[in-house]
């Protein structure tokens, strides 16, 4: 079930301050954040966030169609492994 509209989007408050500070400073540096649960707001568009995935900060350039998604969606926490490469190695 989706979140009630009257509550508005969920964002950790300190992100707003961080984003504001980055904007006013004007430098294009990565804003490190741990708050993967926060919604991406329209005022974050154009900024670069380093979203923590438990190990590293994944740089995320926020574009317009990311608005409404959560930061965590852009910073995968699991490494993908497959067997495709093993086959040739074993036969050769």
């Amino acid at each position, binding site marked *: 079930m989706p979140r009630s509209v009257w509550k508005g989007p969920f964002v950790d408050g300190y992100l707003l301050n961080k984003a504001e500070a980055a904007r006013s400073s004007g430098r294009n540096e990565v804003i490190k954040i741990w708050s993967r649960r926060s919604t991406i707001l329209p005022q974050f568009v154009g900024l670069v966030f380093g979203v923590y995935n438990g190990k590293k900060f994944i740089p995320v350039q926020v*574009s317009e*169609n*990311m608005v409404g*998604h959560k930061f*965590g*969606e*852009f910073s*995968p926490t699991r490494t*993908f492994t497959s*067997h495709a490469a*093993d*086959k040739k190695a*074993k*036969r050769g």
Partner: protein
Amino acid sequence: MARIAGVNIPTNKRVPISLRYIYGIGPKNAQDICDKLSIPGERRVNQLTDEEILRIRELIDREYRVEGDLRREVAMNIKRLMDMACYRGLRHRRGLPVRGQRTHTNARTRKGKAVAIAGKKKVTK
């Protein structure tokens, strides 16, 4: 034979059933169309007058997104997710389930037919 919404030629079935042969029209939409045009559900497509078929065609053109347009919209939505490189997009790219289902077993619809692992010995009884 009746051509409604491009290529679809529903047969001599009842109207709400045969409308469902159109991509994008399911049980609900088919029933709604019949109700709006006050066509009784027992009528078969070959019993419809030309005028009624025309009215169905116009209604679908006006209010429903079907066939190619709908397919394109769905494909665009998936493409948007993939271009954004968000979690759901990555799952689409890999051909794995998107909505958090388990992949340890099952998930064969998304993953396709099972492929045997090379070199794995079979259990003999």
